[in-house]
């Protein structure tokens, strides 16, 4: 469906729910994966995905159409994920490394992860990256999002994103080659 028509339908009270279901079916899996790779736990991801789409629903009239609708949704999702991690740090009064260690431990303990040892090692290596660098890596490596779109989502220049991805890749390679 054409994005403009979808937006019109989302802003119309009568077609809103139908259009919103369509929008969710289009975007929910990508949003879920993006958040899940950041917060690891399914329940936390579920909360954040829901709050992302609730914000989309409530603020659709604020969407100015300067970017694609999906870009706007990912931006909300990214903010939700980063805020969640920030609050978790504040709540636990722990340094950044400990939160990431907790997430890393979850990969070992959760039943919702079906990767082999190499996959576990990769996910743990990704968790050693700073949150924003991790986002850049996941968006590029797993979702194959173009740097230009990433720039719109994260509000960072394309050059900085490329550099960030390159640094992240090197760090991960280094960890994978160790042991």
């Amino acid at each position, binding site marked *: 469906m054409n994005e403009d028509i979808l937006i019109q339908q989302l802003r119309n009270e009568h077609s809103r729910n139908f259009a919103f279901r369509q929008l969710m079916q289009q975007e929910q899996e990508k949003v879920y994966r993006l958040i899940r790779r950041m917060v*690891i736990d399914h329940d936390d991801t579920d909360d954040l995905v*829901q709050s992302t*789409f609730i914000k989309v629903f409530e603020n659709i009239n604020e969407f100015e159409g300067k970017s694609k609708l999906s870009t706007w949704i990912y931006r909300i999702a990214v903010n939700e994920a980063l805020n969640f991690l920030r609050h978790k740090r504040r709540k636990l009064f722990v340094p950044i490394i400990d939160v990431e260690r907790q997430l890393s431990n979850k990969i070992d303990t959760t039943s919702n992860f079906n990767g082999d040892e190499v996959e576990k090692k990769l996910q743990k290596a990704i968790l050693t990256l700073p949150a924003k660098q991790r986002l850049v890596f996941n968006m590029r490596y797993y979702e194959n999002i173009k740097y230009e779109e990433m720039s719109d989502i994260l509000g960072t220049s394309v050059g900085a994103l490329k550099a960030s991805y390159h640094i992240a890749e090197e760090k991960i390679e280094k960890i994978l080659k160790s042991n």
Partner: protein
Amino acid sequence: MHTSLSDMPRKNAFIVPEGYFEELPTAVLLKCSVSKEKKEPLRALKPLWWSVAACSLLLLGIWFVVPNSTPSSDSLLAEESYAISELQDYLAYYVPLTVIEEELNDFDMDFSFDMDFLHFYGEISDADLLAYNNALLDYLNFNDFYED
């Protein structure tokens, strides 16, 4: 064993509970309608707004009514003149007596009775009290007290 990113398959190892994505839109829409209802209390606040409006009107009414119940300029003048006469009475009777009493004490005179006390209980008339005061003042040459 893969030791390089380029060798590794890009798979999604995170499992999603079965049926999760089918149920998610309904769950979100349900919460959207709940949060919409939560915002509705603006309607529930309407009685409160009516109360605020009523109180404001009441205060406005008081604002207009109260000035009308304040004394007129004539009554203010009357009150003012009454206050002045009260002050004059005080100056004429009480203050001189007190001062005179202190002065008399300073002169080591026996002036133990309280003229004001006697005046209060009607044992001495106004005229007598005034005459007495004047006599004492003359005696003490204390007339400067009355000067502005």
